[in-house]
């Protein structure tokens, strides 16, 4: 099949970018979206042109490296799916497919479709851990964790940090990401001592890095490849307010 890929090309962080149309034939319905980009890049290299730069790693939907704005939707039209797990059968060859990088002030474009998402690491560094050295893994029955808490913590721990929530949010907020990190630690016994200070510090880092605030539009959860629920943000807000209401 023949597709028109309308791809954002940008030579560097400071360079002016533009959308460029590429006709790519030989795409099969079973190809993943990244394989279609691979095919495009093979042609570009053979023609002596610069290939399109894009992030990817495991191509199994678990590493969080890939992430593209496809026709204005983070990770494309299929819900709860990363870009690498999206197949070309999801697209109609009659219409050009617009491919853009994540857009947010804290995610500067490095080149073409690659953005620097290290701002998310800065948020984790601000408190996304447990300070107490706990040694090797404890006996699993030593600390009982209620099943609903374990399930909810695991649901949040499934966050792969791809940044789709930021890309989709009309406010450029990282709240769903931060909330997932806050929740998966805050629901477990080991995370209790630092629960509110962790939430406060991570939310503060998010503010300082220039992310927007949350207005509960729910865009983030709609595009999250791991389906992290919006209520996670409500839980984070509770912990952040708890942290803000008492002095350090």
């Amino acid at each position: 099949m023949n597709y028109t890929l309308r791809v954002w090309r940008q030579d560097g962080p400071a360079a002016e970018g533009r959308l460029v149309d590429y006709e790519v034939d030989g795409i099969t319905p079973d190809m993943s979206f990244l394989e279609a980009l691979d095919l495009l890049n093979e042609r570009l290299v053979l023609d002596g042109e610069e290939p399109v730069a894009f992030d990817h790693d495991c191509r199994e939907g678990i590493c969080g490296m890939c992430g593209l704005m496809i026709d204005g939707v983070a990770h494309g039209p299929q819900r709860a799916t990363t870009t690498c797990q999206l197949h070309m059968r999801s697209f109609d060859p009659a219409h050009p497919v617009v491919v853009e990088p994540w857009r947010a002030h804290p995610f500067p474009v490095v080149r073409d479709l690659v953005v620097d998402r290290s701002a998310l690491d800065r948020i984790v560094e601000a408190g996304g851990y447990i300070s107490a050295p706990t040694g090797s893994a404890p006996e699993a029955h030593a600390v009982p964790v209620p099943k609903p808490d374990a399930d909810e913590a695991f649901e949040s721990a499934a966050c792969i940090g791809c940044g789709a929530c930021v890309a989709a949010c009309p406010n450029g907020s990282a709240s769903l990401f931060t909330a997932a990190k806050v929740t998966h630690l805050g629901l477990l016994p080991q995370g209790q001592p630092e629960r509110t200070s962790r939430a406060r510090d991570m939310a503060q880092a998010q503010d300082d890095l220039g992310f927007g605030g949350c207005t509960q539009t729910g865009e983030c959860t709609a595009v999250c490849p791991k389906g992290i629920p919006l209520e996670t943000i409500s839980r984070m807000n509770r912990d952040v307010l708890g942290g803000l209401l008492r002095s350090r």
Partner: protein
Amino acid sequence: MALKSVPARPPESRTTVGRLWSSTVGKKAVMAVSGAVLLLYVVAHMVGNLKAFAGQESIDGYSAFLREFGQPILPHGGLLWIVRTALLVAVAAHMTAAIQLARRARRARPAGYERRPKVQGSYAARTMRWGGVIIALFVVYHLLDLTAGVLNPHGVQGEVHSNIVADFQRWYVVLAYTVAVVALGFHLRHGIYSGLRSLGVASAARAKAVKATALGVSVAITAGFLSVPFAVLFGIVR
């Protein structure tokens, strides 16, 4: 270019309010609480309006009661001025936080997307900011119309029934009120839903209840406010 570290920021405020105000999560909590104050007033106002259906003496008497409330401890109209002061503080906090957060959101995405289909959030969520502007402009008109009486064809203080009957016999006034009240309904629909989340009370177990409450309250308030103008327009209240 790469964000190597979190940028430096001014030292933390020592007051609770200062700490809340310096955080986006705290600012949303301020918006939620000030919004709740405004919501309580809106509910009381809507219920008071329904006295129009009980006849001229009922609503005019209610108006006089509100002005004479608490005398002689409070001066004439004292209660109203206390309420007005509280509302003014709430409106100022609500609007200032909203404007600051909207500006922060704009800075967070300096370059937009070339293709961006309609966002998946509700219509109410997408129209919060402009809806708020419409409501604010309406409140100015409404105060000039039915509080000060300047824009009212009858315009006599205390004669509430005659003022509203004179007002809502004109279809364009009813239309203006309808637009504003519907905007208020949408604003409350997302405002209640979002405010409860901003305060952290919307757990997964309560998510459905939060959504239903937001819808129920906003529909009830919209219907209650629209009932009086339309009742006058169709001659039910005269």
